[in-house]
């Protein structure tokens, strides 16, 4: 299989994945190519697979430039960077990395809730700066028992719900449709959900319909005591509205793992003690990234050996 050309469209920041691909295929890293149009044009007849991630995948323009493309294997569960319709149209297979990262993302959501409500990062800073010698840190807000509202009750949303229940948190949710057999309280709109919960978590897929699902109206409904947790995608949130709400105190707090234009994060948020900012580490454990890489490689191998794909989307 070493002669099969695979194009990595995302930055090659995952050594285990890069090594595993280089061992089996001829790997091209688009990120390190100085003249991308020239590269694509000269390799148009050899590239048979694309590996992408949350940052970059395969949009319509790229797909059009790779007539021999057979499969897009994403090192992510999110598919927002892949033109799925175009892949379907052209018979290009698409795979992602579901299930293996569900725990890590859910764990991080809970970690962010605790960090924001209990001011864990700020109180760590308080100790490091020597301020404790001057007096106690201020009172924080109890997490157990707070109502958690989840947007999107898929694998990750359910995993978050199940963990929050262990803290006696009542769970409510919004989804495209009410889920049968689920005991959590369904709200028919995101605004309604936001108005009736203490902590609102974005856990749905990013699609044209869910872009800016967190807008001014939702932020107002969540209110000055409410907390927003985003472990979905940056574009789920109208970032400018979120920043002004936080700066002006109209929203109680936020825990954010994803942003509109990663790795750029609005600097107005840096000094806010009720905001915790993470560099898109939802699946960021050694164990999970390895499992994700194994799925990417395993899917590619299966495809080129004419075996059933491990985690096909299209």
């Amino acid at each position: 299989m070493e002669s099969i050309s695979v194009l990595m469209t995302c930055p090659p920041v995952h050594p285990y994945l890069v090594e595993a691909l280089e061992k089996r295929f001829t790997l091209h890293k688009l990120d390190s190519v100085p003249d991308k149009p020239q590269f694509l044009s000269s390799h148009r007849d050899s590239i048979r697979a694309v590996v992408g991630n949350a940052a970059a995948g395969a949009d319509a323009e790229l797909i059009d430039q790779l007539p021999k493309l057979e499969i897009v294997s994403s090192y992510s569960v999110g598919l927002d960077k892949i033109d799925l319709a175009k892949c379907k149209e052209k018979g290009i297979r698409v795979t992602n990395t579901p299930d293996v990262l569900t725990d890590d993302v859910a764990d991080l959501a809970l970690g962010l809730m605790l960090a924001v409500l209990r001011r864990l990062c700020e109180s760590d800073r308080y100790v490091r700066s020597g301020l404790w010698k001057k007096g106690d840190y201020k009172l924080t807000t109890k997490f157990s028992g707070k109502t958690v509202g989840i947007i999107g009750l898929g694998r990750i949303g359910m995993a978050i719900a199940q963990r929050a229940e262990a803290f006696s948190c009542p769970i409510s949710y919004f989804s495209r449709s009410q889920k049968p057999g689920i005991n959590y309280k369904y709200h028919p709109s995101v605004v309604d959900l936001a108005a009736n919960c203490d902590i609102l978590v974005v856990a749905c897929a990013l699609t044209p319909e869910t872009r800016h699902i967190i807008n001014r109206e939702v932020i107002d409904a969540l209110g000055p005591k409410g907390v927003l947790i985003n472990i979905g995608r940056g574009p789920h949130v109208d970032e400018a509205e979120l920043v002004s709400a936080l700066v002006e105190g109209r929203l109680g707090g936020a825990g954010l793992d994803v942003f509109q234009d990663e790795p750029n994060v609005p600097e107005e948020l840096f000094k806010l003690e009720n905001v915790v900012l993470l560099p898109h580490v939802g699946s960021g454990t050694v164990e999970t990234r390895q499992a994700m890489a194994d799925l990417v490689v395993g899917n590619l191998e299966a495809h080129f050996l004419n075996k059933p794909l491990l985690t096909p989307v299209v």
Partner: protein
Amino acid sequence: MGSPAADEDLPQVLLIRNPPAFTIDGEEQFTSAKFRFLKAFESTLPPHDFLAARAQSVRAMLASGGAVVDASVLQFLPELRLIVTTTAGLNQLDLPECRRRGIRIANAGDVYSADVADCAVGLLIDVLRKISACNRYVKQGFWASKGDYPLGSKLRGKRIGIVGLGRIGYQVAKRLEAFGCSIAYNSRKAKPGVSYPFYQEVQELAAKSDALILCCGLTEQTRHMINKEVLAALGKDGVIVNIARGGVIDEKEMVRCLMEGEIAGAGLDVFENEPDAPKELMELDNVVMSPHCAVFTRESLLDVARLVVGNLEAFFSNEPLLSEYEDD
């Protein structure tokens, strides 16, 4: 409150020091129509002189964590029959001396347990997933300039060793089970009806754990229980979380282990010499610290004030206490 004349008939409750959050947002939280406070700290007399002069007939006392109550204090309180604490821990009281004198104790019961358990879980997730370190990283602008932060470690499948499976330890266990962790524990003795594996020796628990969470009281037996041998058994991939008391750990040894990479990280709410935390820890990214504030949420302090008042009112009405502490 009633008129001054009626107030004087009310039984007195001795208050040596002002408890934390005696007032929250300007409102006094421990008020009752059934008793009044005798505030030693408001007097110009030295404490023991005040007690000798004014506290002879006092039957009840409210003690917060900072108020040490030992024989030297109790000698001035011959009528004392009840100590109510605002704390769950009782290491500030000389318990054998209280028992000898027939003094009953009511503590904070289960009021803080959820908050302390939440803090323990929050610290563990923070250490394993590097939340505080990443937050610092992003807020210094490093994500854009330096790239991704190093990866953390997964929670599911981690073996958690709970040291002290009391109310707080049990709540920690219940929470971490939901994250797919497995639980084992050490306690003075095995708890009936508990299915988690029990280890009589902390060192053995440490050897079989990926993370140790300290939830026990500080006593003669538990002082420096987490020592060189236990930390070595925990090992270079092991994490320690302490929401109990600083004195349970040999702090100097733990600091050395962290500096030399002999354990992987620590989440610490308590220290041996508060408010001083070891300066060596201040530069470490694999350590998360908090200023002994696991119980300090608005909700818990309101709840404990209600519980304290409830206990005192029950005592003065000869009713059962709400949260009487029994040695087991």
